């Protein structure tokens, strides 16, 4: 069954909300008929946001990513319902058509515009819904998990703002020993221009659960996108999570994503950063249970004047965990990328096995990639390695392929595609691989 839905009646939100303020927070919450406890939570977060300073350029995390030109006042605080009937953009329809999913949900500037469950998920006890509804239908689960443990509102300035103004996103709950075979697809299409968007992903995989979730992020022209991803990966559960960011090249994009992994949890997180004018993404694997297996894989390809910054943390708190990180990026034109990563091994996390690699392929001498890998190791019986590489497309490779009859552009394309392949090989959804290949193709071309 699939339905076009319109959660909100036109006129629910007063047009007067034009500035970031406590009143804005109250108006947002009221327009959504939220329970009192959520309003309280939002207001507390707003107070924290106001109390926290903006990042300064001498903060280690922000030394290479400056917020010059970024002003909150330049954005409408959040996108408001336009009163038009819900429609699904052609762009979004393509995304829906291409993936065979167990369930799909589309957010259009905060509102749910479409949902379709191919499988009877509720019969299995699986919850796949928008967070706004979940507040009413699953308040105990939301109160337990929403920004309480994985990402707390005061994690950083942006998460505080997010907690005060979150406006879209999915709640995914997979009960014990339950398996969802096909991926669950969440699409955010930020169609409003110049607005703030605060997409949230809350995934709770109970012990022994298995699930794959794809977050697709589009649109956001001249806007501010400030997302949070929270993954609770239970004992022996298997989670595949893909965050595919393809915002407009005018978007200011901030992301804080964390996963808490319990005993023998198996997580693969794929982070794709194609779009935005500037991205600052904080991504953590927090390994709290023994025997955890975590993979954090990223690809990025800034062009023009795009600036893409990933900052990762692999936290090993307990013994016998494995984590593997691989971020590969290509850069063109005057693009800039930053990768900063730390593997943190706590004193009793013996037998830790942790890897971190960042590769950069510089396609133009005007592009620049900074890579700052790091280890903080307090246990003595561990195996940890990190590596950073920056390379150009070597003439020897191009010549070899040309000597087989490939044109120069074909040879260069193949080499760049090949460079991303190490990550693409580990993307578990075929249609996502095809889509990523297409974007790479497009980015190389123009």
């Amino acid at each position, binding site marked *: 069954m699939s339905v076009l839905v319109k959660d909100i009646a036109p006129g629910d939100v007063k047009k007067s909300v034009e500035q970031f303020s406590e009143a804005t927070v109250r108006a947002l919450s009221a327009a959504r008929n939220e329970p009192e406890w959520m309003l309280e939570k939002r207001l507390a977060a707003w107070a924290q946001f106001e109390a926290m300073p903006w990042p300064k350029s001498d903060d280690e995390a922000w030394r290479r990513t400056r917020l010059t030109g970024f002003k909150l006042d330049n954005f409408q605080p959040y996108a408001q319902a336009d009163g038009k009937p819900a429609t699904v953009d052609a762009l979004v329809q393509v995304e829906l058509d291409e993936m065979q999913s167990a369930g799909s949900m589309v957010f259009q500037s905060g509102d749910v515009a479409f949902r379709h469950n191919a499988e009877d998920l509720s019969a299995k006890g699986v919850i796949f819904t928008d967070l706004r509804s979940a507040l009413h239908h699953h308040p105990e689960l939301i109160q337990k998990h929403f920004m309480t443990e994985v990402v707390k509102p005061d994690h950083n300035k942006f998460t505080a703002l997010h907690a005060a103004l979150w406006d879209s996103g999915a709640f995914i709950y997979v009960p014990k020993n339950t398996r969802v075979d096909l991926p669950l697809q969440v699409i955010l299409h930020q169609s409003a221009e110049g607005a703030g968007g605060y997409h949230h992903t809350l995934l709770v995989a109970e012990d022994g659960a298995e699930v794959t979730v794809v977050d697709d992020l589009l649109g956001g022209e001249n806007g501010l996108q400030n997302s949070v991803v929270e993954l609770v990966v239970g004992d022996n559960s298997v989670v595949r999570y893909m965050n595919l960011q393809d915002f407009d090249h005018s978007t200011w994009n901030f992301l804080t994503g964390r996963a808490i992994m319990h005993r023998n949890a198996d997580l693969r997180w794929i982070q794709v950063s194609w779009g935005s004018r500037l991205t600052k993404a904080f991504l953590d694997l927090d390994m709290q249970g023994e025997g955890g297996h975590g993979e954090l894989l990223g690809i990025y390809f800034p062009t023009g004047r795009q600036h893409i910054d990933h900052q990762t943390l692999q936290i090993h708190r307990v013994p016998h965990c494995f984590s593997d990180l691989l971020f590969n990026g290509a850069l063109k034109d005057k693009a800039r990328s930053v990768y900063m990563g730390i593997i943190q091994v706590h004193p009793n996390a013996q037998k830790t096995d942790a890897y971190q690699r960042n590769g950069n392929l510089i396609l133009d001498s005007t592009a620049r990639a900074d890579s700052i890998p790091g280890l903080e190791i307090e246990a003595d019986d561990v195996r940890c390695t990190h590596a950073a590489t920056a390379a150009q497309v*070597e*003439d*020897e*490779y191009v*010549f*070899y*392929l*040309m*000597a*087989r*009859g*490939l*044109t*120069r*552009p*074909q*040879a260069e*394309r*193949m*080499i760049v*595609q*090949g*460079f*991303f*392949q*190490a990550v693409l090989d580990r993307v578990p959804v075929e249609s996502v691989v095809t889509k990523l290949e297409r974007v790479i*193709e497009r980015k190389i*071309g123009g």
Partner: protein
Amino acid sequence: MSVLEIRNLHAVVEDAEILKGVNLTLRSGEIHALMGPNGSGKSTLAYVIAGHPHYEVTEGDILIDGESLLDMEADERTRAGVFLAFQYPVAVPGVSVANFLRTAVSNVRGYTQQAENNGNSPAVIGSNLMPMREFRRELNEKMKEFNVDPSFARRYLNDGFSGGEKKRTEVLQMAMLEPKFAILDESDSGLDIDALRVVSDGINKLATSDRGFLLITHYQRILNYVKPDYVSIFFRGRIVQTGGPEVAHMLEERGYGWVEKEFADEPVTA
């Protein structure tokens, strides 16, 4: 019947003249072995024929059937019928042998050209390709014929290949591209006797009357398996002697020390 002619070829790299007047004519159906000490410029000659952009030709010409290759890019030369088997094939991670070869074969056999004539861009990978089924069938057949394990189709080009596997894959590529003239740069070096036999068998299968071979080697060993029509001695950027197979035997007896003594005094334009 085609002719590859190298006429008084001079080439420099980084201000050093490496080729100092090479003359050689290779016809379809001929196998011409080129033997010389390390550093004499054999690979440079191979690269210059194939159109490596690092080398500059300062004098002379390279022609196929009277048409000069000098203004052609490497890929155009390949499409004109030249194939170079590299002494050191580079590894290209993430690019599978099958994927790469399908594009290469499509270009060389004119699929891309046809599409271009229909108004499509030839540079887009994935368009204008030889039909997958047809390509697969042919690749599988040739892998069997040239002793390359079928799993190599999906492996990344030369990535983690042993020396022997690389050289065998070069022969497979040659078989797929069906060149008029093949230049094999030390396809025998670093191979154990079994691998050498496989590579030699491959060359012999491909040595048909419509194809010429320039077999560059440091050692006489491969000539026990592949019988050359001509053997030339290459020394300090030039061919100093040409003859039949007996030249190879003489070289084996006397060694490169003899070449050094015999030809060191030859006038060389520096």
